[in-house]
């Protein structure tokens, strides 16, 4: 068994695996930045009052699972969501079975508008 078998082969294998992983992470980071830029460019301006109202509602109803800064705790990170406003409203209203409570009785339509505006401000 020569040096190639003992040292070079594992080194090459590790280098290729590391390069594959780094490449995948690099492509993912690039695609994330492209997506973020596209979303920023295509977004309509948000009403600051509505966003502030949504933030208040968020702190009262959602922050204990999604954290005060919405970066996620028990529930997922809410930054960079790609869902439509309608989808967000439905999710908040109906919840997710076994995962998130429904808020259809607690929040009225104007509250939902404000919450959705706040979530959109996190994109």
């Amino acid at each position, binding site marked *: 068994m020569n040096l190639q078998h003992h040292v070079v082969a*594992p080194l090459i294998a590790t280098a290729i*695996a590391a390069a594959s992983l780094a490449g995948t992470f690099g492509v993912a980071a690039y*695609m994330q930045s492209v997506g973020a830029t596209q979303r920023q460019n295509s977004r309509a301006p948000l009403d600051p009052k509505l966003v502030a109202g949504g933030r208040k509602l968020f702190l009262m109803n959602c922050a204990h699972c999604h954290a005060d800064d919405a970066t*996620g705790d028990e529930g997922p990170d809410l930054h960079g969501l790609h869902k439509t406003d309608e989808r967000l409203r439905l999710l908040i209203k109906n919840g997710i079975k076994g995962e998130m409570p429904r808020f259809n009785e607690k929040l009225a339509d104007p509250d939902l508008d404000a919450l959705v505006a706040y979530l959109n401000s996190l994109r």
Partner: protein
Amino acid sequence: MNFDQGFWLRVHGGATHFPIVLLFVSVLLDLVALCWRDQPARRGLHAAAALLACIAVVASFGAVISGLIISRWRTLGTGSMLRHHIFVWPAFAISIALVIWRLIMRDRASSRAFLIYVSGMAIASALTFAAGYWGGEMALAGELSR
């Protein structure tokens, strides 16, 4: 064809099960070969295991890419997605490294080195199963389609 989230969710579902099973069967064939006494059959089992491991690694790129698309290119995320990724990335790296090593070494590896290889592949396979479990949790909770 509509390349929306649902489409990639289906592609990921299909693409992941392929390498999961191939990796597992590859480890199984290598283990059977280690216990087998008949030399030609042993060689055949090892060759089949090596081929399956190679296909699994190639297929895992498809699984990883489709997975990144549905996670919106998040390599970690939070909650079930984070748990899924904690198992995915080591499994991905370990299986690539070991398959490349096997391709370079072919049948020149010592029995000790080969045992380390099979152990590593078994760990990668177990990690893949764990990743699949958390992937299933995400799919059931509808975290990816919402």
